[in-house]
């Protein structure tokens, strides 16, 4: 496609956005450097070995959450659009519930139910971590669903499904090899949002007593003056790096299977 040269209007909008996003970050940086010596707030944060271990733990939990979330949501959103449009309102309502459940209520509700037989998740480390993943799937539900749903709307799933079925593909093949590849951009968006949530999340990880990044950052920030600013920037930077890495993994994103086209 011949791209039109970027007009001034679009550049202006972009630059306005950049200004809005970066000024608060610059202000935070400026404040964090007022420590004596200037980088003390940062060195204090990074010296600790627990920094790396908690970051790794949260990254792993994040990836697990993304995988489980996609496995749950992609088929669901697909099925709603393809077969059960009447269910749309109900499903969307459920996906928006996590917004109105306060985090403390969520974690204490989960602990209450899953700290006794028949499903005593909290009694073991693995169980507690599994409960954490479940909690994060809930938290990322609104975003993941919306991302996948929007992505599905942009492609013609009826035709794709029909075409695949006419070639004898079963449902699993359809989803894995026909639908998913066409959703790359949407899946990446959903993955970004989920990872950001997991890396920054504090309440659930803390009350489930998990060695995650959120509680660790919070510990660093306790009542000190310059450290919290440094810590929030470090967290911002690291999360951005993780995103760039995921984006890099999903690089060949522009292929699209076209119906009736040259492919």
């Amino acid at each position, binding site marked *: 496609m011949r791209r039109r040269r970027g007009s001034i209007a679009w550049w202006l909008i972009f630059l306005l956005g950049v200004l809005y996003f970066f000024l608060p970050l610059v202000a935070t940086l400026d404040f964090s450097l007022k420590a004596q010596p200037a980088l003390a707030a940062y060195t204090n944060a990074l010296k600790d070995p627990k920094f790396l271990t908690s970051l790794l733990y949260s990254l792993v939990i994040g990836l697990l959450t993304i995988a489980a979330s996609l496995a749950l949501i992609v088929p*669901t959103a697909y099925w709603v659009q393809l077969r059960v449009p009447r269910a749309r309102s109900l499903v969307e309502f459920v996906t928006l519930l996590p917004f109105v459940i306060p985090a403390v209520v969520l974690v204490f509700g989960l602990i209450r139910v899953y700290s006794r037989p028949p499903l005593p998740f909290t009694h073991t480390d693995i169980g507690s971590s599994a409960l954490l993943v479940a909690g994060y799937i809930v938290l990322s539900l609104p975003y993941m669903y919306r991302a996948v*749903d929007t992505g599905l709307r942009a492609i013609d799933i009826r035709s794709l499904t029909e075409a695949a079925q006419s070639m004898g593909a079963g449902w699993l093949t359809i989803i894995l090899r026909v639908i998913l590849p066409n959703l790359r951009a949407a899946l990446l968006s959903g993955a970004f949002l989920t990872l950001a949530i997991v890396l920054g999340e504090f309440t659930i990880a803390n009350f489930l007593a998990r060695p995650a990044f959120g509680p660790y950052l919070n510990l660093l920030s306790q009542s000190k003056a310059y450290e919290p600013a440094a810590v929030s920037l470090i967290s911002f930077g690291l999360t951005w790096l993780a995103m760039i890495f995921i984006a890099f993994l999903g690089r060949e994103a522009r292929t699209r299977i076209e119906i009736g086209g040259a492919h």
Partner: protein
Amino acid sequence: MTAISERAAPLARPARRFSRSWLGLAPFFLFAIFFIGAPVTYLVLGSFQDNEGQTTLQNYADLATPGIANAFLISIEVSLVTAVIGGVFGFLLAYAVILGGLPRVLRDALMTFSGVASNFAGVPLALAFIFTLGQLGMVTVFLKNFGIDPYASGFTIYSKLGLELVYLYFQFPLMVLIIAPAIDGLRPEWREAAENMGASSLQYWQRVALPILFPAILGTMILLFGNAFGAQATAYQLTSGLIPLVTLLIGNQIAGDVLHNPGLGYAMAMGMVAVMGASILVYTVLQRRAERWRR
């Protein structure tokens, strides 16, 4: 296009309320029952209890008190405003990097940045804005050097306007990320075809692009609405003591320092559930209208 959607008929089953197709949604609903159902049940049951554990409807009656009702109105207003503004500018931003002719690397940078920024909230975000636009903020001081004193002319970051300004920080990126695939879905051939038929830019937008994008834009705005509606920590840090929001009131009741009434907090949370339910209804109605003129 129409030919394809007509061929959809064989796949669609005759309209029965709960056809067996709903079984395909079983994993989703099971997950919801197991992991959302537990906290929600607790919310529902708790909302009917008072501090002594007796069953009561008083908590729901209290929802009508002016303080709480006012908080609902303000929360809805702030969420609506940031959803619309966030939706519009977020859309423009996404369009700028995808189809606006900007270098490709800017799209990747914006997408990854949006991933992080969409979750930059709470105390760090509020502090960042205080450091920028507070009375001693970087930008405020900068402007003062040029003789412009925003605070003298009545601006303050510690207001509803300030709160909305801060909320937009995570609303814009959310819109950008979610609407991007939809903008991707706008085939360049459609624009070229429209131009070949003599359509102007405006007509292209009015007749082709916006109708196609409308359901996605609407759906994402609902998401933005819920996102803002449920925010709490940011608001607390920024406006503690002045602006009543429902999430703050709930936090006070359930997780506060002064022994209050968790039951009332749960009833307020149920009120929020009702608001989300109502917004889904509005969204569904608007959606049906939009689809009507797509055919």
